[in-house]
């Protein structure tokens, strides 16, 4: 079973974010970089499948130089190999173009399963897993809360639906699966695992390895900014009776949470 796990390096959730003067990028000197949360769960799910069914887990990331750490961490946890896709010409690509870059890299590997986290904690597009499924002609599942290999050519995934509903779905391999956080308990990298990282390979991929039409994009981000605080608090006054009457009105007619 050959499994690829896509992992993205993102700012830590508690990092203080300062926008650079170009209004497009972040000042990076105060950011703690981590592996995207749902990607950690995807990696663990892949490692569990490998332990149960044998095979290989390859960690893949697309990012700046600092993102190599994400691959090191994955290798330390048990991934067998890494793929590092990096080039400054990828910086302004939208997610569809990035998908094409990644697809052209992964195509020749013929993965049985590609696992990705549901969405990244930075841009939160929540698209890559499905884009790859289409470009690489794989089946797909998203919001996946559980996986089960049926046989060499089938995997069953438990999808989360709205309102507390769930649904198992059979997917024919190859499949691209987007994993929801909380599906498992990500393991720690052991001392032995960290020492083994030196012996594992990471392949570098740059723009020269990618076909040129993947490097175009039709989407531009004009700016990033702190959302405006337009709130004016409306204070509700009166006796407790009056206040509760006004609140009931509010809940019924304005906010509409009462029938």
């Amino acid at each position: 079973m050959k499994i690829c796990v896509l992992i993205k390096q993102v700012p830590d959730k508690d990092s203080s974010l300062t926008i650079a003067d170009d209004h497009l990028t972040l000042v990076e000197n105060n950011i703690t970089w981590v592996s995207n949360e749902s990607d950690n769960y995807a990696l663990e799910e892949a490692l569990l499948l490998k332990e149960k069914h044998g095979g290989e887990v390859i960690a893949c990331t697309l990012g700046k130089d600092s993102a190599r750490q994400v691959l090191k961490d994955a290798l330390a946890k048990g991934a067998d190999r890494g793929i590092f896709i990096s080039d400054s010409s990828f910086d302004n690509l939208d997610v569809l173009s990035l998908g094409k870059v990644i697809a052209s890299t992964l195509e020749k590997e013929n993965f049985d399963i590609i696992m990705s986290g549901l969405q990244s904690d930075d841009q939160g597009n929540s698209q890559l897993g499905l884009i790859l499924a289409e470009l690489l002609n794989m089946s797909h599942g998203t919001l996946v809360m559980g996986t089960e290999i049926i046989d060499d050519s089938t995997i069953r995934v438990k999808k989360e639906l709205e309102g507390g509903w769930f649904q198992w779905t059979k997917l024919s391999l190859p499949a691209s699966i987007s994993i929801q956080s909380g599906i498992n308990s990500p393991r720690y990298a052991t001392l032995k695992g960290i020492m083994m990282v030196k012996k594992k390979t990471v392949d570098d991929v740059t723009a020269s390895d990618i076909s040129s039409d993947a490097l175009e994009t039709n989407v531009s981000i004009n700016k990033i900014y702190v959302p405006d605080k337009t709130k004016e608090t409306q204070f509700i006054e009166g006796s407790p009776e009056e206040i509760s009457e006004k609140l009931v009105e509010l809940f019924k007619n304005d906010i509409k949470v009462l029938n």
Partner: protein
Amino acid sequence: MKILVYIQQDEGKINSVSLEALKGSQEIAAQTGGTVSALSFNSDITSQLAGYNVSEVLLAEDDNLNIFNPLFYLKAMEDIAKAESPDIIVFGHSYEARDWAPRLSARLDIPLISDCIGFKMEDKLTFIRSIYQGKLNSDSVVNKGAFIVSFQSGAFRVDGLQSGSAEIRNVTVDLSGVSDSISPEEKFQEAEQAVDLTQADVIVSVGRGIGKEENIEMARELSKTLGGEIAASRPVVDAGWLESSRQVGSSGQTVSPKLYLALGISGAIQHVVGMKGSKNIVVINKDANAPLFEIADYGVVGDIFEIVPKLISGIQDSQ
């Protein structure tokens, strides 16, 4: 500018996020001089759709479209897009949309701007997205060509959805040859569900101001009357008065319900980051200086023990 809005249906009812997206599309059309058509794969909802101000309602019917299966829905949409050539395809960003809209983007080779919280007309039509977990916003434009956009729940409000009267037109799709590599099974609900505050429409949240464990019962009743969930800030969970799965904040859950009713919560930043995305924040606290009032939509400086019992009976009377 031709806008085609896909309207999702659940059990014969129009999905509310799709309806909000329809409203948003009407607003885009008004500002760009475009037309809005609604698309459904189910005839249960088409007559209702025809009552909205859309230029027409498209209906694609096929046995394979009765239950959601991404590959069949994709092929249907692909056929329709080829035939109708919309400039913009619009979705409500529902769980179901997440399971096929991105793949549609790759299928048609046009970008998808997903989970938008709004739009504005500047030089070009600009879509606003919330990034870095709500800390920042980004403005995106599509430079050329057709594209897909999905709108987040709550980005638009359906009151004010214009009505009209539209024709319903059947469109044909060819779903033969669609792969069966994705086969959904029966939906089910789990017997024991863990609390998922992120799914609640209404959250009644208590802070230190609740005073004692016994007083939580009052808040719990209020949340039941409102059909919502009870939650708490960190000190309440630390004291063991509510389970940690009910904690809202930086070391708990991040929520954005329609109504977040905060009782006796002062508003430490650790708590605020977990709930400031809520659509309507109502704060009741006897301390007029409580920082939480700064992000409140509605504030009450008062005693929760006097107000909440009256609120509970007031709600019960109104129902």
